[in-house]
């Protein structure tokens, strides 16, 4: 089976045309990016607000976690059956797919964001108010940067889930790498199915690596404890290099 899959993956015929791997991958990336953008546009502001004000944590967290339990495929078919009579074109498949994936992507980003804000060291927050910052300034200059590690962890979790689940778009006739999985299953072409699954996994890992890279650049070194080692700054002086980068409450160590 593995060698048949490798044969499928290395067959040039599978890498060209509208059904080729590059086109399907691009479709998959587009679906995932659009979904992720919409999910972040909803979840980040909501998360910042909840985290900063402390209001609505119980309700929103409850709803967000409840959403996680919804079966995405069932949601997708339900939306299609509801929307199709209203819109008689391809959007009747596109919109439900995006909605179903957004529902999947919102909870991790939302929880990451508000938990990140809420877990900011109270001392840092107090200090910020103490030097006369307004609530808005505290949020943008102190809480948000300090919350970034947890926010990124939510984003990465959402990205992985969305990329893995965007395969369901193929169930309602759309493209993406899910096409190989759905078509492979329908025609009992299991090598094709397996190849599709492997491509999705590779794409998900690449995306995760990419975001990890962005995270490395954007998150303050003071939070992650990654210090450049210079002659004036011997290794033993700073915290351990290459920390996990997801602990949001680490405070600045003196350099």
């Amino acid at each position, binding site marked *: 089976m593995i060698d048949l899959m490798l044969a499928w993956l290395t067959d040039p015929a599978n890498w060209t045309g509208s059904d080729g791997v590059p086109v399907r991958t691009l479709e998959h990336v587009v679906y995932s990016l659009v979904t992720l953008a919409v999910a972040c546009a909803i979840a980040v502001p909501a998360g910042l607000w909840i985290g900063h004000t402390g209001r609505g944590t119980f309700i929103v967290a409850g709803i967000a976690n409840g959403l996680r339990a919804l079966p995405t495929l069932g949601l997708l*078919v339900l939306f299609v*059956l509801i929307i199709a*009579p209203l819109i008689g*074109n391809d959007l*009747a498949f596109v919109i439900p797919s995006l909605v179903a994936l957004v529902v999947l992507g919102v909870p991790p980003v939302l929880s990451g964001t508000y938990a990140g804000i809420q877990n900011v060291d109270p001392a840092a927050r107090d200090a910020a108010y103490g030097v006369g910052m307004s609530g808005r300034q505290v949020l943008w200059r102190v809480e948000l940067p300090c919350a970034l590690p947890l926010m990124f962890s939510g984003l990465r979790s959402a990205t992985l889930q969305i990329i893995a689940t965007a395969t369901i778009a193929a*169930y309602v*006739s759309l493209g993406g790498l899910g096409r190989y999985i759905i078509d492979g*299953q329908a*025609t009992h072409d299991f090598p094709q199915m397996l190849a599709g699954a492997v491509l999705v996994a590779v794409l998900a890992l690449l995306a995760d690596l990419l975001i990890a890279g962005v995270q490395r650049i954007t998150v303050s070194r003071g939070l992650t404890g990654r210090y450049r080692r210079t002659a004036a700054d011997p290794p033993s002086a700073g915290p351990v290099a290459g920390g996990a980068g997801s602990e949001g409450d680490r405070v600045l160590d003196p350099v």
Partner: protein
Amino acid sequence: MKRTRLAVVAGLVGAALTLAGCGGSDALAPDTSSAPPADAGTIVVGSANFPENVVLAEIYAQALQGKGLNVQTRLNIGSRETYIPSLEDGSISVIPEYTGVLLQYFDKNATAVDPEGVYTALKAALPEGLSVLDMSSAEDKDAVVVTKETAEKDHLTTIADLAPYASQMVLGGPPEWKTRETGVPGLKKVYGLNFKSFKPLDVAGPLTVQALKSGIVQAANLFTTQSAIAENDFVVLQDPKNLFAAQNVVPLIRTDKVDDTVTSTLNAVSAALDTEQLADLVKQAEVDKTDPATIAKNWLASKNLG
């Protein structure tokens, strides 16, 4: 290969279950003939486990009963792999079947596609002890379906009529239709149809029905007797070139149960039934949730066969 081994295991388990099921029910049901010749007068009508087949079995049973025969029913037995052995061991005497799939069951390499050819090949392929009576013109098979509006606007009655319009139409069907011979390639080869595009949906399920209904696709693959067709006023296009192998309804019966009364009764049923009526019977069972026995009774009465 692993799959083969799995299939063998599944087959063995299935066979064991079948045997266990037959043994158990024979022991527990004193009314039923444990050995076929024991009460040769009784005819046991069986059915597969889907509504259309159950209704057909009820029709057979009530028609035979109407002729004064001693009839029992064993409905919802399961799949072909289960009920053919029951037929062979005499637990059931007759069951409504479909020519094309039945032929495939007994002869994997069968190539006949037209109703007569399939029927002839089927008769030759049947094992000793099993017979088929006359087939009905009623068929439950793959079909290309359009909405009533489309059919009226473009004067469509057969798949061939689609030729001038196909290039502006989107076809919907199960994903396997994209490559399967009895799908997009076959429509192109046999009828010369080049659809604007093909939309992979589900196997004649809610997505396909909804896509056709809302105009996302203009033609779709459904099954000829599916209740969604009657429900939505869809039009089944005829298949004059037999792209889809014939699936005529036919009584599959133990040869030792065949006599003049049985033959003439079931042949009369088959002659009276057609695809449109069968679709309506299925709709009564699936949509209106009418009891299959009542559906059968009403239909037989309407045909003066009860």
